[in-house]
């Protein structure tokens, strides 16, 4: 759609500028003394000007000069901007800071104001105005170049090039400019539209193209003088300016989309239900779909009060989405189906840096839970907040509540998140990778805190993690997810048990997952164990066991029939069965 619009825009501009003067050139000059300054008529659709020349023809002819001057202006702006914006990268940090500072100061002034001042210097006329507007737009292009260059400068390949001793100039044109070319092209196209408008403005003010030459701005000015007699003479050039400006914008948008590779997700309706509690959590046949992709495919499990359950799996196994769906936080286009019965829930998210509102004090964010749900007064809620922060072992809680999230450390913020969950009376705490963003010593403290909270309040915990060690420390029971389904449900003791002793995990995937965890006894001379192959994507429709392609124990049945989850394991050839079979065959 945008592609067609962009193509049409390009054709429109090419047609006007290429053929406009050829087709309408004579009409634009023909002086019709019988029809001076007339309104719109069949012979002159937009009327005539003071010398009886056809306004429409003049608009068409003026397009070449107008668009040409806009492109010239853009070229000046882009060239100047590249030089000024690229200089800091070439000259080094000290001179660079000076230039950046200067650009930063100049960019604060409105471009048109700078252009007007420059018009005093350069004088009036087409080229002078192009120079004035072009130079006036240099700072904003320089700013863009510099920002983009800075964003690229932090990337690994630049660091690598620097290590290799690539010089600054070479770095700029070999490594930096090619990587920022796309956004620059987009901005230049959009900038051409802006230049066109600015030029029209300057000409309109009588500071751009001078008579007898004319561009759309001049025609607009002439038209406005006679707007009482013939509005079309003013609206016509105005329309031309807007259309051409839009054409540049559409092309810029298309360039941005083509470069950015944006895609849109198909929208479906979705709703999550949350009826009253029975157990802490009961999930039946939970499915989450995003269009054709089904990242969670019919998950069922139960969590009793006070129980601490871990959900583990590789990235993309659907464990986090399961947690989000349980707390009703899957947003459209995600679509949730199935039965979820959850007791009052508190969430602890992965990244405490972004999960707290940066603009609100800790006190506000904690207290509002109690004021909203428990109908507590603000003062009472505030003192409860202090108590809860103390409960999660935050020292000087009275001071901390007055602070903003950015003033706290990562561990403190995660504690504050947990305290926030405790402001109500949660019977279930869902913690989605709560320790992943924290360092190891803080991890342990947070896990200890979660365990303590669970024992003192009786709240059940569902811990989502890819880290078996974290799950082992906190949970008593583990759900193993693979490709959107639960493949095994086992007590944590079986996870840590010696697999060969016969009471290790039953599912080959769980065993493979365990084998991939390095420990202190791992032979460091050998590569780390991995699970060969990759997990099927949520888009794949799998017949048979989803793990079969990667499973050492898979046979033809595994590839053909999907094993049902029997409450403990979903596998045709679980390890325990084999163990029992061996016993029997003996």
């Amino acid at each position, binding site marked *: 759609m945008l592609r067609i619009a962009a193509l049409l825009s390009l054709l429109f501009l090419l047609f006007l500028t290429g053929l406009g003067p050829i087709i309408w050139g004579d009409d634009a000059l023909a002086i019709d003394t019988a029809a001076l300054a007339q309104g719109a008529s069949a012979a002159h659709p937009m009327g005539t000007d003071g010398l009886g020349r056809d306004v429409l023809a003049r608009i068409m002819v003026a397009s070449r000069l107008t668009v040409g001057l806009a492109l010239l202006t853009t070229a000046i702006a882009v060239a100047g901007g590249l030089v000024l914006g690229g200089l800091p990268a070439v000259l080094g940090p000290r001179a660079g800071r000076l230039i950046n500072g200067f650009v930063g100061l100049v960019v604060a002034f409105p471009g048109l104001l700078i252009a007007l001042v420059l018009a005093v210097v350069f004088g009036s006329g087409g080229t002078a105005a192009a120079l004035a507007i072009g130079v006036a737009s240099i700072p904003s292009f320089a700013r863009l170049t510099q920002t983009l260059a800075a964003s690229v400068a932090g990337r690994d390949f630049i660091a690598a090039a620097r290590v290799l001793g690539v010089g600054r100039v070479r770095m700029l044109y070999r490594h930096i400019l090619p990587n920022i070319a796309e956004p620059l092209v987009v901005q230049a196209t959009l900038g051409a539209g802006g230049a066109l408008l600015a030029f029209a403005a300057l000409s309109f003010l009588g*500071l751009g193209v001078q008579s007898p030459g004319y561009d759309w701005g001049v025609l607009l000015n002439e038209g406005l003088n006679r707007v009482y007699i013939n509005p079309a003479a003013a609206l016509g050039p105005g329309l031309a300016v807007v259309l051409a400006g839009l054409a540049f914008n559409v092309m810029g948008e298309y360039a941005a989309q083509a470069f950015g590779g944006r895609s849109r997700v198909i929208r479906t309706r979705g709703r999550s239900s949350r009826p009253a509690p029975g157990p802490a959590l009961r999930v039946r046949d939970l499915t989450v779909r995003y269009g054709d992709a089904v990242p969670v495919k019919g998950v069922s499990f139960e969590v009793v009060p006070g129980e601490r359950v871990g959900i583990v799996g590789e990235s993309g196994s659907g464990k986090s989405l399961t947690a989000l769906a349980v707390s009703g936080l899957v947003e459209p286009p995600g679509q949730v189906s199935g039965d979820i019965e959850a007791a009052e829930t508190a969430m602890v998210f992965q990244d405490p840096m972004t999960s707290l509102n940066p603009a609100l004090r800790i006190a506000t964010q904690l207290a509002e839970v109690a004021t909203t749900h428990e109908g507590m007064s603000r003062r009472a809620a505030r003192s409860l907040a202090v108590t809860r922060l103390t409960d999660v072992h935050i020292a000087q809680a009275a001071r901390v509540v007055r602070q903003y999230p950015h003033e706290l450390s990562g561990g403190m913020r995660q504690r504050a998140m947990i305290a926030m969950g405790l402001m109500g009376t949660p019977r279930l705490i869902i913690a989605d990778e709560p320790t992943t963003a924290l360092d190891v010593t803080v991890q342990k403290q947070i896990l200890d805190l979660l365990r303590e909270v669970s024992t003192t309040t009786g709240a059940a915990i569902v811990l989502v993690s890819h880290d078996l060690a974290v799950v082992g420390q906190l949970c008593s029971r583990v759900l193993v997810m693979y490709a959107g389904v639960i493949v095994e449900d086992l007590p944590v003791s079986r996870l840590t048990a010696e697999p060969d002793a016969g009471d290790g995990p039953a599912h080959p995937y769980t065993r493979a997952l365990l084998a991939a965890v390095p420990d202190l006894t791992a032979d460091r001379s050998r590569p780390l164990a991995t699970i060969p192959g990759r997990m099927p994507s949520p888009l794949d429709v799998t017949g048979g066991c989803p793990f079969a392609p990667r499973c050492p124990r898979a046979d033809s049945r595994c590839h053909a029939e999907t094993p049902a989850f029997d409450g403990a394991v979903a596998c045709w050839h679980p390890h325990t069965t084999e163990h029992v079979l061996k016993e029997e065959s003996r």
Partner: protein
Amino acid sequence: MPDMPRHPWAHYLLRRATRFLISMALLVTATFAMVHAIPGDPVRAALGATASPELVAAKTHELGLDLPVWQQYARYLAALFSGELGASMTSGLPVAQTIADRLPYTSLLAAVALAVVMLVAVPLGMAMAAVTRGGRGRVGELLFTGVAGFLAVVPEFLLAVCLVALFAMGLEWLPVADVTGSMGPEFYILPALALAIGPAAALARIVRVEGLQVLASDYVRTARAKRLPARVVHLRHALPNLLTSALTIGGLLVSGLVAGSVLVENVFAWPGLGTALVEAIRAKDFPVVQGVVLIYGSAVLLVNFGVDLLLGRLDPRSVIGES
């Protein structure tokens, strides 16, 4: 991590004030340099080819343009600090007088327009963000982005022309300013609309996009996880995080408004600074240009400074940060 200053707010204030002063110095120097950058003899250019050489020489001497540049600069600075902006080359009227006469019209117009922009754009953008969050309301989204996108690219002077053609000529509902009569509130409607529609559309689009981002952020998810009513989620958790960007953009819009007002004033023959500036540029009447540009420039800088201070209050993170 750099050392945290003991009083981050005072530190921030100092940094912003320094920046403001340097920008002012840049502005003053640029207006001074403008006269010297005019090719040929600026006095001759201003007085025209017919002026006698004696007159040009006398005027040049009067303006001090025959002095060494550094002395001229010193004179210029001294004059500025005593509020002296010189006199028009064409009319001989003091520039300060011209500005005092015309500034109220321009600033009132800009203030009305800015108020319209803010009052329309922020609620509209926020509402559209809430409605179109996560790909809902596709028709509304298309309609909004289409219309707002179109209005945002139509330059204000074209809007002004259209408004004149439609409401003043066609329907004859509203008057167009005339310099002779006194200006009642009804005279402000069309110019203020012409100035406000574009920026309002642009700001509403930005607020919507920012709003979508804020509504998708982890902390809004946290707020939803707390089962807060939608009103609290939007007004308490989303809006303050939105206001910072809306204010930043709003500050930029003010500079746009300044530029736009020059054009709109010319369409409506508004007795403001914009018409004076354009007349002066055409006549190469550089003392007037200098004075008006100084006013416009310092207005923009003042607004930016004010926005910075407000931002520091609204978003506590902006006080620290940046080295």
